[in-house]
């Protein structure tokens, strides 16, 4: 009887271990369905066309985004666990209607900049969302690979594995990702001790792109101020338009290059000075890719195995010749 029990227990453990291994391998081998579109994409936001939908209560791009993302986030836990020791909870679930800044429920908003062009006062409207950078620190530094840049250029956060540590927000020069506490896998682990929700930002409507459709904000724009297409074409179009109007581009060099280009009739430092900035309201200043400073040392890391092999071989040769000399002396 005891033997039978032992065997059963062993079989159970074997089965459980095998199931866990298969489960882990399965989870890791299935990439998220976000590899949208074919080839590298880019978007152009033409500020000479955008009028901020001044005649509407909410800009069309903002409404379209809110509509398509509505209900995507589950309701947060009630009460939301208070993280120890920081005690900071970020809850936007009761303020889903907010549309004048980035929130976990508002992934695009329109900034307003009153500037002078050729002596005349003019208002420039600037739709703001994730820039989908070429080498996004928010994704490469994500400790759980929850945030990833896909081949089409979209940078997408997986809400199922994100712990809401806000590292992506900290390393983003525009602080784009926004946190919603009380949602996510951290609730199933150690909610008060690890994690603090999930991070949310524009994913370029990856699911729509996968179906061959256009992102909701671009589709909804009544002024056709936004466009998406193959990166080379969009870049060429943006540069041609900038040359034609004597305008300026933003996003081409910023943070090492992005998949989002803004075309403006006024320099971006003037827009940066004119827009309201703060949490959820990014600026338009010159931005260098801070991680570029670590690339040199990173390359040294990649070279380290070869250096180690060379040092080991050289050391061993020295050791062998020393050993031979000693043996000679001893003879």
């Amino acid at each position, binding site marked *: 009887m005891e033997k039978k029990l032992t065997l059963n227990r062993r079989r159970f453990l074997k089965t459980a271990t095998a199931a866990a291994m298969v489960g882990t391998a399965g989870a890791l081998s299935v990439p998220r369905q976000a590899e949208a579109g074919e080839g590298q994409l880019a978007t152009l936001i033409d500020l000479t066309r955008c009028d901020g939908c001044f005649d509407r209560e909410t800009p069309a791009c903002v409404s379209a985004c809110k509509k398509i993302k509505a209900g995507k986030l589950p309701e947060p836990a009630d009460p939301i666990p208070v993280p120890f020791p920081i005690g900071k909870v970020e809850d936007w679930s009761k303020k889903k209607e907010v549309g004048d800044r980035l929130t976990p429920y508002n992934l695009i908003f329109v900034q307003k900049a009153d500037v002078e062009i050729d002596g005349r006062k003019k208002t420039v409207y600037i739709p703001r969302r994730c820039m989908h950078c070429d080498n996004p620190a928010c994704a490469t530094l994500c400790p759980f690979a929850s945030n990833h840049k896909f081949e089409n250029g979209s940078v997408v956060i997986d809400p199922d594995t994100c712990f809401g540590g806000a590292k992506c927000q900290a390393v983003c020069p525009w602080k784009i990702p926004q946190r919603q506490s009380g949602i996510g896998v951290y609730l199933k682990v150690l909610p008060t001790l690890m994690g603090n929700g999930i991070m949310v930002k524009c994913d370029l409507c990856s699911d729509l792109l996968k179906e061959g459709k256009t992102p909701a904000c671009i589709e909804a724009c009544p002024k056709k101020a936004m466009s998406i297409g193959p990166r080379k074409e969009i870049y060429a179009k943006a540069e041609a338009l900038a040359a034609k109007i004597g305008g300026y581009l933003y996003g081409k060099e910023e943070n090492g290059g992005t998949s989002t280009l803004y075309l403006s009739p006024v320099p971006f430092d003037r827009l940066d000075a004119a827009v309201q900035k703060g949490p959820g309201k990014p600026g338009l200043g010159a931005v260098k890719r801070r991680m570029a400073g670590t690339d040199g*040392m990173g390359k040294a890391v990649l070279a380290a195995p070869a250096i*180690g092999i060379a040092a080991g071989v050289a050391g061993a040769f020295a050791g062998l010749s020393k050993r031979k000399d000693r043996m000679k002396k001893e003879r």
Partner: protein
Amino acid sequence: MSLAINEEKNRIVRHGLLELAEHWVLALSGLILLLSGMFELPMGTRYGITSIPGLTWSGDYITSLTVHYVASVIFIVAGIFHIIYHGLLKEQGLMPRRGDIKASVIVVKSFFGKGEEPPFDKYLPEQRLAYLGMAVIIAVIVISGLVKTYKNIYAPDLSHTIVLWATWLHNIFFVLFILAFAGHIGAIVLKPNRPMVRGIFTGAVRLDYARHRHPLWLAEANTTAPLPVPSAGKSEDGKGVTAVIDGSPAEAAGETPASPEAEVAGTTESKRTETAGVTAEKPSREESPNA
């Protein structure tokens, strides 16, 4: 290869300078990697570590990544040097042997007062197993870390499947590394192992301890190679008697050309040899200096 012994000071060299350097370079760079890796998790801001004086940088991920990279270069070079150097010189005393698992069980039982431990070679069987375990853990961390580094610099849009594997293996083996490190520290806290601690700081351990607990280490030198004619005498400083006992098996026990630590080195110029210092009697519990 030689075993450097100082009878007067009751010391025998267990690690050469190179081995000490390898150990401490790996240990210190490993600790820095551990710490900067934790800050990357992120922990600095989450747990208020940023408010600790001297650790305000813990919340700056670019700074902690730089620190992580610098420590990685040192750690990887030292680790691969260790494998290549000792591999080519066939100094493989830390590699597990047949029967080590069984022997380790006996040794662990003896720590809890059940039975007697067998006589040891230079390293304990569980030390050899732990070495291999730690090597596997480190190998996985290094390989996955190299993939992550490559992704950071050259391929942010690397296949998500590869990035997920690299990231999670790095994280899981990071936890295993912490456990292995805790086990390593736990092992030296055990009373019978404590005399070995001196060895990793100074290079030498107590001779009576080595004779009692590691007789196979000393015996191999004595039995498998001809020993030079003994000519024991006083050292130059007149304080100690040094014995350098030659025998190739010591190399197989993982010894590099020893640069004996200060306590022994002070007398090495008068390298007297002494066979009497090497005995391979199986120790009894009663005689144990650790009992």
